[in-house]
Structures are given as structure tokens and as C-alpha cells.
């Protein structure tokens, strides 16, 4: 019983395979013919006019892209210019004459305790500040020298003067005109952080840059 059933199944399978072959034969004979015949003329006919149009379109596209790039570049440039202008924050201090501007793009530098030499990483910051100042030759700045609260107020005034002047000398050495930079020492009188610990002190030993005129 089991063997007979198998034969029957095998017989059925054989039939299906045969039918499939026949179908495939028909496809192989008929279909390729049709497609080759149809496709060849269509490609050849379209070739000439498309090239003309595409050339024009490509040229146009290229011009458009160039223009876009130029606009983008200009916008970026303007944005960057605006970034500096936008970064300017007016600062008016009670009891001190005049208004100045601060910019986050002009970065503070810091100092070791009782020292006024520019450390290498702060020299990098000064270079960035100098690059910015080179782009805006009208800008005049004031460098504020600050100290932490330790030590006497008067000696810290001397130290702050020296710190501000150290940064000025550096900026002049990389090409910023000396008459664009003034200095002022606030000693320990204007701490950035009011704390009484090393963290606060490290922040307070700084040169801060303000813009006197833009």
C-alpha cells in the first residue's frame, strides 16, 4: 500500500515538472523576441534629443548649484559675522562709567597663583582671540586683569596689571595693533566666583576681555 501510494505521488510530480518545462519553453521562445524587438528601437530613437536637453539641464543645474553654494557660503559667512555680532552683550556696571560689550567668542584666560605668565593652553586661546580681532579691525578691547582673594588687595592690583599686560603683549606679538588694546587691573575686587575655595580661586585668576567699541 505504501509503495503504491509513493508511485502515484511520484507520477503526479513528474506531470507537474513536465508542464513547467513546457511553459518555460514557450517563454524562452516567445518572450525574449518580443522584448528585444520592442526595446531596441525605443532606446535608439530617444538618444539624440535627450542628450541635448540633459546638457542644458545639467548646465542649468550646475549653475543653480553654484549659485546655491555661493549663497550658502555667503549666508554662512554672514551667519558667522552675525554670530560675533549676536554674541555681543552690552554690559553696564553701576559706579563705572560707560557701556562695554562682552562676547563669549573672546575667551578668558587663567593664571597660576601669584603668576602672570601665559601658559601654553592659554596661548592657544589668545591665538583664537587674536584671529577674531583680526577679522574685526574696528573692534577695540580692554583686557581686565583679575586675581583671587588671597593676598593683599594692593599687591593684587599690581598682579592684575601685570596679567592684563601679559595678554596685551601676546596679542601685539601676533599682529594686533597696540592701540586697539587697553588694560585695567581690578585686583581681587571683582571675583567671577564668590566662593572661598580652590575651584573659585582658579576661576577668579583670569584675564577677561571686554569690547570698548565695535
Amino acid at each position: 500500500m505504501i509503495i503504491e501510494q509513493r508511485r502515484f505521488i511520484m507520477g503526479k510530480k513528474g506531470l507537474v515538472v513536465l508542464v513547467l518545462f513546457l511553459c518555460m519553453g514557450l517563454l524562452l521562445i516567445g518572450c525574449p523576441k518580443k522584448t528585444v524587438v520592442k526595446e531596441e528601437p525605443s532606446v535608439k530613437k530617444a538618444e539624440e534629443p535627450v542628450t541635448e536637453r540633459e546638457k542644458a539641464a545639467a548646465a542649468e543645474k550646475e549653475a543653480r548649484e553654484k549659485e546655491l553654494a555661493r549663497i550658502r557660503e555667503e549666508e554662512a559667512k554672514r551667519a558667522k559675522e552675525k554670530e560675533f555680532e549676536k554674541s555681543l552683550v552690552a554690559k553696564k556696571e553701576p559706579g563705572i562709567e560707560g557701556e562695554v560689550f562682552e562676547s563669549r567668542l573672546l575667551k578668558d584666560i587663567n593664571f597660576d597663583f601669584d603668576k602672570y605668565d601665559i601658559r601654553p593652553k592659554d596661548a592657544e586661546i589668545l591665538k583664537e582671540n587674536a584671529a577674531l580681532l583680526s577679522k574685526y579691525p574696528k573692534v577695540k578691547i580692554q583686557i581686565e586683569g583679575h586675581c583671587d582673594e588671597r593676598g593683599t588687595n594692593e599687591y593684587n592690583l599690581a598682579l592684575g596689571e601685570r596679567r592684563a599686560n601679559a595678554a596685551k603683549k601676546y596679542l601685539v606679538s601676533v599682529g594686533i595693533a597696540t592701540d586697539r588694546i587697553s588694560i585695567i587691573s581690578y585686583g581681587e575686587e571683582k571675583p567671577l566666583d564668590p566662593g572661598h575655595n580652590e575651584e573659585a580661586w582658579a576661576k577668579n585668576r583670569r584675564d577677561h576681555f571686554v569690547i570698548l567699541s565695535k
Partner: protein
Amino acid sequence: MKKYFFLPFLLLWVVNTPAEARVYLDINAPTFVQIPIVLPKWKTVNKTPPTMTAKVYDILSNDLTLAGFFKVIDHSRFPSLLKEKEGIPNSNALQEWTTVGGEILLVGEALLNSNSNLILKFHLFDLVEQKHLVGKQYEGPPQLLRKMVHRIADEVVLQLTGERGVLNTKIAFVSLQGGGKEISVSDFDGSEARLLTQNQSLNLSPTWTPDGKKIVFTSYLRRNPDLYLIDADGQNFRRLTSYPGLNAAPAWSPDGKKMALMMGMEGKSDIYLIDANGNNPKKLTTGHGNEASPTWSPDGKRIAFVSDRSGSPQIYTMGSDGSDVRRLTFEGSYNSKPSWSPKGDRIAYCGRVEGRYEIFTIGVDGSALQRVTSNSGSNESPCWSPDGRYIAFSSNRLGGSKVFIMNANGFNQRPLTSAKGGESSPAWSRQLE
């Protein structure tokens, strides 16, 4: 200031028992025991308001305590010995006071007379030797009550120590007010404090003119540390110098003709001399160091200052023409803010010890270094009283910075002001009239 401020009050009479003047207290001794002085309540005569008498008593008691030489024994018992015979009190009544425990007795009375003038009368007795030392009577408008009491306290100090006290002096200092620092002045006892500036700026390093009438200081009003001058009563505020850079830490020469100060005309701080009107700057220091905080010797011949020319801030002295520079301090790696004593023999300064700042004094030849504050907050900015017996300084030992005074040897340190804190940079006036 009120117009009668400058009107002197009168010394009406003096009773000085003729005897060899005896100094009860050698305040220059390295240690001394405070003299116990009995201070009974003052007597109110006629229709004088009792509150006025009480005020006299309180100011006097506080003055004598602040003077640092006395242990004041308050006594509520009324003095019965002012029954004078020809101005001299009856010393027989002294016996009853010897049991109180004092060596000196100070009694007095207050009287408002028919001219509405206040009359203050006092007598000083030696209880050990049972004798009268001095008696004086002052008359003046009641508005001068405090000044009159200070004069009495000064007289007591003179009688018992051989030198007039400094109770009629004033102290200028920097006072933190909101975000600004203002110049303030108070009496020696911390009373009568008033702001001379109210400009919200940074006003720093007040110094008195030698005549005690004006104060010079640095202010950032015009976005530069410039020098300004103001009368001690707050009048006539005016700018004195505005050289580019620092115009800071002014110090008048004793003759009042010149000023030494820190100036930054060359991009770093140097010591300069200028005329009293701010002209003719002359640079005194040379070299590459930071120079700060000049202070004159009382004879005007030398100037002490700070310099970091050796690599760390140290005290130096030089001739007032910049010649003959000598290094004074060698101990420690941070010595700053010198103040030359009015007697000329010592210089007080601020030095760093184990991260803290302490007050030191040193002989002008570098000998006899003495540390006068110890392990109590950070102490800065010493300045001498005009008699050289006290030093005022600022300390944060109670939290915020306050002005303290102490005897020059470090004894009896106490805060001067009852203010909230934020006071610094004291400067002591001369003895005022």
C-alpha cells in the same frame, strides 16, 4: 557735618594734685596686667536728662575698655565723695571704695546748664595710695557729648600711662555695600560710622592727609583706577590724578607735600612720587618687579614698599628718592602691605603662614620679628594708631571681613565695628582736635 563740629568745647578747670607723675602702666612692656578701674554710675545734676548721663557713662566705659589698658569694673553705687572743698574732693570717703577690687576710681557728673550747655566733670583717684590724681571739667554743646567723653578717656589714659590716648581719632575703611565698595569713616570706638562715598563704584585704599582733614583713595568711577580726594566730612569730592593704568595705594609724605603711590604707566606697577596736587610723577623703583604699597618713615626720609623682584613679594625700604634699596623681610614666601610705625622703629606687614595671612611687626633694621596674630582667620592690611600703641587690621575670623584693633604687641584683639561685615583696609587718622 554740623557747623558746631569745629567749635571747641572748653576745659573749664583742672585740679591736679601736685605730686610726682607716676606711670601706672608701661604699655611698651612685652606683657602687662590691665589696671582694674572702678567706674561708678555718673551723677545727674539738676534737670539734666538721665539718658544723657547714661550715654556719657556708656561711652566712657566702652572707651576705657577699647583702650586696652584697663579692666573696667562697672559699679552702680552712687559716688558720695564729690562733696568738694575748693574743687578738691574729700579723699576721706575713698576708704569705702577700696573693697570693690579696683586700683583706680573714676567718678563724674553731668549737668545741663542754663545755656543748654553740657558740663562734664570728673575726678580720678588712686585707691591704693588713697589720693586724688586729677579733676577736670568740660563745657560744650550737647551735640559734642561723644567728643567730650573721648577727651575725658584720653585724659585718663594720659594720667595712667604717661601718653595721651587715641580716643579722639577716626578710622577710615572700605565698606562693602551691595556690589560696590565705599569709603567709610567712624570714630575710634566704631561709633558714628558714615559713608563718605555712595557712588556704587569700587573705592579702595583710603589714606588720611597728615592734617587729618582729608582722605585720598582710589576709585574706578571712570573705568580706570584714579585717585580722588574727599574732606573727612564728605564734602569736596574731586579727582586728583588719572594717569593711564594704576593710580593706587596713596601714602602722603609726613610733611603733606608729596604722595607716594603705585602707578602702572609702563604696564606694570611701580612706586612713584607725585606732588600734593597730583602733578610731576617721578618713578622711584627700577627693574622688572611688581612694586606695591608704599609707606613713609615718620621722618619722611625713607619709604617701605613691597616688591616681588626676588621672585616672591617681600618688604623693602628705600630712600625717598629711590636710592639705597634694602630688603627687610627674608622669612616666608609672601610678605606684603607694610605700615611704618609713627615712632619709626618698627614696620607692620601681612605675611602668609601655612596658607593663612597673619600680621607681623619687624624692626626697621630687620631685627626682632614678631608675629602678632595667630591662627584666627586671615588677617590683612595692618595700620598703626597715631601714638603707635595699637594696630588696626582686617580679619575674616568672624566670617565676613571686619576691622579689628589690637595693642601693638597683639594683645586685646577685638572687632572695631558692629557692622554686618565687609569692612577692610583701615586707615587711622592723626589725633584730632
